[in-house]
């Protein structure tokens, strides 16, 4: 056997794995989102939608989608957002729905705006609409015989009395659940995830450190891979907090963890290194093939950690959080039952 590894150490390592799935957008009810688009002067664009960025990076995602659809750059896109009196409904920031719902709505709106522009140019150039390309801020014929800037194209369109605008409404056709047996189609797009966690357990204090998490997630078509990673890393760490330390406590209805000294969160010294892998299984039912990642990234982490603790020290924690107290108590119980088994074995 491997002698150095068998040497005593109070630190024990182990690994665990867990899988998960999730549905995209609102559950068991139809979901919808709207957006307006305009190809604007100077080859820029305006996208107007009630999208609500909560830090995940959805505005950037929408700018990328619009840029891609219109043949311009994300920085050319201005987004008018988050205002119920000034923008079309895009509904809420939640349910891992914004990239899917609003991304597709923006794509549809951009396609309509682009079509309007292309129609005028096709007329001007006396060619078919399909023979016109928009990319890299240039509008050209497929054979490149004609090539103008997007800025010039917008001018031509406007001089013909047409503002190249479009609107998009995207629907996700979900059905409710049967009240008796729960049957139904709650989502049209599903995502899957799996994570491996490696932990080190201090057998003298019960402390668990999560050293590494390897996270693989199907997000559909990934619009901004760095943003996807950011969602995975953030989700994993939020789950590490719930798994090891966070606990909102109340005694007889009176909260006792009402500040961040009592309700503790993971610090920079408590978090694992996270390695992400993005699997792209595009959604076949929607224009862009995108799905989502915000919520599902944190589902497999807790069980992967708990399973890793078992792998390391042979105890199963069934209740969260797995505090040092709980882990050490479980180790103590395991020791006791091992001792009593030994005694029984001796007595027979």
């Amino acid at each position, binding site marked *: 056997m491997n002698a150095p590894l068998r040497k005593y150490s*109070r630190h*024990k390592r182990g690994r665990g794995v867990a899988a998960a799935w999730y549905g995209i957008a609102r559950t068991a009810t139809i979901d919808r989102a709207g957006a307006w688009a305009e190809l604007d002067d100077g080859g820029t664009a305006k996208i107007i939608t009630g999208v609500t960025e909560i830090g995940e990076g959805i505005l950037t995602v929408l700018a990328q989608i619009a840029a891609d659809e219109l043949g311009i750059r994300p920085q050319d896109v201005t987004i008018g957002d988050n205002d119920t009196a000034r923008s079309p409904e895009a509904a809420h920031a939640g349910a891992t729905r914004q990239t899917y719902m609003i991304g597709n709505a923006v794509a549809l709106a951009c396609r309509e705006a682009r079509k309007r522009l292309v129609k005028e140019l096709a007329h001007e150039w006396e060619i078919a609409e399909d023979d016109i390309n928009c990319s890299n801020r240039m509008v050209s014929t497929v054979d490149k015989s004609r090539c103008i800037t997007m800025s010039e194209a917008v001018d031509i369109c406007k001089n013909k009395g047409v503002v190249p605008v479009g609107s998009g409404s995207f629907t996700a056709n979900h059905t409710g659940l049967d009240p008796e047996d729960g049957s139904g189609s709650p989502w049209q797009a599903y995502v899957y995830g799996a994570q491996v966690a490696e932990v080190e357990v201090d*057998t003298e204090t019960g402390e668990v450190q999560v050293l590494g998490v390897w996270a693989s997630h199907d997000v559909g078509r990934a619009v901004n891979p760095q943003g996807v990673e950011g969602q995975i890393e953030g989700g994993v760490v939020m789950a590490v907090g719930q798994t090891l330390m966070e606990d909102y406590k109340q005694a007889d209805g009176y909260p006792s963890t009402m500040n961040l000294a009592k309700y*503790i969160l993971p610090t920079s*010294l408590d978090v694992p290194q996270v390695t992400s892998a993005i699997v792209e299984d595009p959604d076949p039912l929607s224009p862009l093939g995108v799905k989502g990642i915000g919520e599902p990234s944190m589902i497999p982490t807790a069980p992967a950690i708990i399973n890793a603790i078992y792998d390391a020290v042979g105890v199963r924690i069934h209740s969260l959080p797995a505090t040092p107290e709980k882990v050490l108590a479980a180790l103590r119980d*395991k020791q006791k039952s091992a001792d009593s088994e030994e005694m029984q074995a001796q007595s027979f």
Partner: protein
Amino acid sequence: MLYCDHYHVPQTLDEAFDLIQINHDRHKVLAGATDLLPWAREGRAGDVNFEAVIDITKIADLSKWELHGSRVSLGANVTMSQLLNNPFLRKHIPIMAKSAIWFADDQIREQATLAGNLINASPAADSTPPMLAMNAEIILDRKLNGKFMQRKMSLDEFVTGPGKTKLEEGELLTRVICDSMPEYGSAFEKVGHRRSLVISTVCLAALIRLTEDGTKFKDVRLALGGTGPVPVRLHESEACLINQTVETELINKSANLAIKHVNSRTRQDYRREVVFNFVKRGIMEAIKDFNKACTEIKNDIQPGIDHG
């Protein structure tokens, strides 16, 4: 919120005492403020109003440290950051740096003072166990009718309960005096629920001096925090080692003697087990620190129960 009508920043002790006298029962003395401001919030003390806050951090006399023979005298304004980073302090009371690195974070350590941590008398105060182990004494000054008066008492005597000390109305804790211990090996063990900004569930200070041949304990200082209403010095655990040969069985015995000090309101079983493990580990780590060259000890004695 902490409200006050006047915020005073005396430059001398004399000024401070005058302000204390003028505002006798309507004042609050403040140093780092890192405990006071969070205290004056909802769910704790709530909004608190003092007529006068007296900030002593600009009193130059209280910001000094000196060596007096074998004792180090630390002014009340010495910060956690200084304990962590100052070469003189790291040489003479190295265990304080080991404790300070666990104290809150870089930023709070810049403001928080050792004296403040002692006066707050939290059962889990990280500075108290190492200071108890270094035979710390507290100097309490006051000025009454124009006359300066001073009391001196051991830290052990000073801290009487959770949040309670023998500090009297009108008194200022001006200095903390403790042993200079450059020739000791030391260790600070701490466990909480995370690794930064963490409150101790249990913490232990260990200071060890071995005989020249490295086989016997010449002196042992052990103190424990987080396990009861006040941090405690582990006299029995120390006594069972002093002048004895360094060996596992004896260290286990010493660790066992510490368990009875667990007297907390919650998580007693957990703390008992950790105290046992910490005393053993603390002693071992302090021995390693004492004589890093003495590899024999490391290899011969393996602390801990192997659960794996």
